[in-house]
C-alpha cells in the first residue's frame, strides 16, 4: 500500500517535473502538426554535451574511487543486457505475426541503453537528493555493446538455420569498434579519459554542469517530437511490439534492480546506483543502437525496432520506470 501511495506521489510530482513536461510537450506539439523543428546539428551537439559532462564527472570520480567497486556492477550490466536480448529472442519471436529478425533487433534495441533516459534519471535522482556514484553512467557501454553484439549474433544464427545460406562470418570486432566509435559512447569515453587523466573540475563546474539541465530539457522535447512521429511507423507492424515496449522496460528494469540489490548487499553499491542501473536496463536505445542493428541485421524492419523504442519504450522508461524504481528503492532501501 505504501509502495502504491509512494509511487503515485512520485509519479504525480514527476509529471510536473520539467523533464517529463518537455517530453510530453514534444509529443503534443508533433501531434498538433506544428512545424517547430530543432535543427539536427543542435540535437547532436546536445547529445555530445550531455555525455561529455557525464563522462567528465565519471572520470573525475573514478580517479578517486576504488576500481573494485566497479567490477560487480559492470558484470551485472553486461549480464542484464544479454539477458534482455535472450528473453526477447525466446518470447517476442514466437508471438503471432512477428518476423524473427525484427523481434531480435527489437530485443537488441531494448538491451542497449538510451543516453537521454539515463540523463533524465540522473537529474531526477539529484532533485530528490538520492546519492549515486558518479561512475554509474560509465556502465552504459557495458550493457550497450554486449546486447547489440548478442542480438546481431543471434539474428545471424537464426538466419543461417532458416535460410541455409552460406556461412557468413559475423565480424564481432567490427561491431565493437563501430559501437565504440558511435557519437554517444565516444563522447562518454572521451569525457571519462579527460576526467581521469587531467583536472577539468573548473570547466565542468562552470560550463558543462550548469548547462546540463537546460540541454536535457531540449533533448526531451526532441525525443517527444520524434516519439510521436515514429508512432505512425509502429502502427504498420504487429501490436505485439507495442505490448513488448510497455512491458519490457518494467521487466528489464526489475531484473536489473534485483541484481543491483545483490551488489548493494555484497559490494556496497549505493541505492541510487541500483535505481540508475535499473533505469539504464529499462531504457531502449534511440540514437546509437538503431544504426548498429540496421547494419548488423539488415533484413530487420526498422519500423519495428525504432518505432517500439522511440515511440513507446523511451517514454515508458522516462515517465513510468524512473518514478517506479525510485519508489521501490525508497521502500526497499529505506531512503
Amino acid at each position, binding site marked *: 500500500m505504501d509502495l502504491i501511495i509512494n509511487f503515485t506521489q512520485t509519479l504525480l510530482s514527476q509529471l510536473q517535473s520539467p523533464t517529463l513536461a518537455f517530453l510530453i510537450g514534444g509529443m503534443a506539439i508533433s501531434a498538433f502538426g506544428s512545424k517547430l523543428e530543432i535543427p*539536427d546539428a543542435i540535437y*547532436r551537439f546536445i547529445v555530445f554535451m550531455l555525455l561529455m559532462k557525464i563522462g567528465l564527472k565519471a572520470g573525475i570520480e573514478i580517479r578517486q574511487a576504488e576500481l573494485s567497486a566497479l567490477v560487480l556492477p559492470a558484470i551485472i550490466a553486461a549480464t542484464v543486457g544479454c539477458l534482455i536480448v535472450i528473453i526477447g529472442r525466446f518470447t517476442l519471436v514466437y508471438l503471432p505475426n512477428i518476423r524473427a529478425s525484427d523481434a531480435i533487433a527489437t530485443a537488441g534495441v531494448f538491451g542497449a541503453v538510451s543516453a537521454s533516459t539515463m540523463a533524465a534519471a540522473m537529474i531526477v535522482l539529484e532533485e530528490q537528493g538520492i546519492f549515486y556514484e558518479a561512475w554509474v553512467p560509465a556502465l552504459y557501454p557495458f550493457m550497450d555493446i554486449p546486447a547489440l553484439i548478442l542480438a546481431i549474433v543471434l539474428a545471424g544464427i537464426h538466419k543461417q538455420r532458416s535460410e541455409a545460406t552460406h556461412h557468413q562470418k559475423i565480424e564481432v570486432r567490427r561491431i565493437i569498434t563501430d559501437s565504440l566509435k558511435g557519437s554517444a559512447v565516444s563522447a562518454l569515453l572521451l569525457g571519462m579519459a579527460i576526467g581521469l587523466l587531467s583536472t577539468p573540475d573548473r570547466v565542468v563546474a562552470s560550463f558543462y554542469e550548469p548547462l546540463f539541465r537546460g540541454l536535457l530539457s531540449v533533448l526531451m522535447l526532441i525525443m517527444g517530437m520524434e516519439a510521436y512521429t515514429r508512432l505512425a511507423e509502429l502502427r504498420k507492424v504487429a501490436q505485439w511490439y507495442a505490448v513488448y515496449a510497455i512491458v519490457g522496460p518494467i521487466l528489464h528494469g526489475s531484473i536489473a534492480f534485483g541484481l543491483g540489490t545483490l551488489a548493494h548487499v555484497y559490494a556496497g553499491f549505493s541505492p541510487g546506483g541500483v535505481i540508475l542501473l535499473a533505469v539504464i536496463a529499462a531504457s531502449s536505445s534511440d540514437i546509437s543502437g538503431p544504426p548498429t542493428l540496421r547494419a548488423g541485421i539488415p533484413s530487420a524492419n526498422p*519500423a519495428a525496432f525504432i518505432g517500439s523504442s522511440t515511440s513507446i519504450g523511451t517514454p515508458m522508461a522516462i515517465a513510468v520506470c524512473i518514478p517506479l524504481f525510485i519508489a521501490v528503492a525508497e521502500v526497499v532501501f529505506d531512503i
Partner: protein
Amino acid sequence: MMHQASRVTITAEKLIQDGLTEIIEAEGALGYSVFEGGGKGQHGLHGLLRSPIVDEFAIIKIEVVVTDRAVAEAIAEKVTKAFFADHSGIVYIDNVEILRPTKFGNSP
C-alpha cells in the same frame, strides 16, 4: 570538344555510404560526389522536412562519372547485388558529355 561519358547515380540510405564508395573505387572510378537529401520511398524512412535524430537514416546521392560504359554498368550491378536486397536505394545510369576525359577514366 565534348566527349561521351556515363554517369552512375546512386540514391541510398547514408548507412551504406562507405560500402558504396568502396565498390565505386574498386571498380576503378577516379572520383565521386556525395550529396545529402531526403525523400520518400516504399519504406517512408527518410524525411526531408523533419530533423531525423538518427543521421545514418538520411539519404545520400552519389554521382560517379566514368568514360567507360562497362565500368558504369559494373558499378550499378555490384551495388544493387551487394546492398539493395536489404537496404533502401536506387541506381540509374545516364549519358553525359564532358570536356576533360582524363578526369574521368584512364581509357583512351
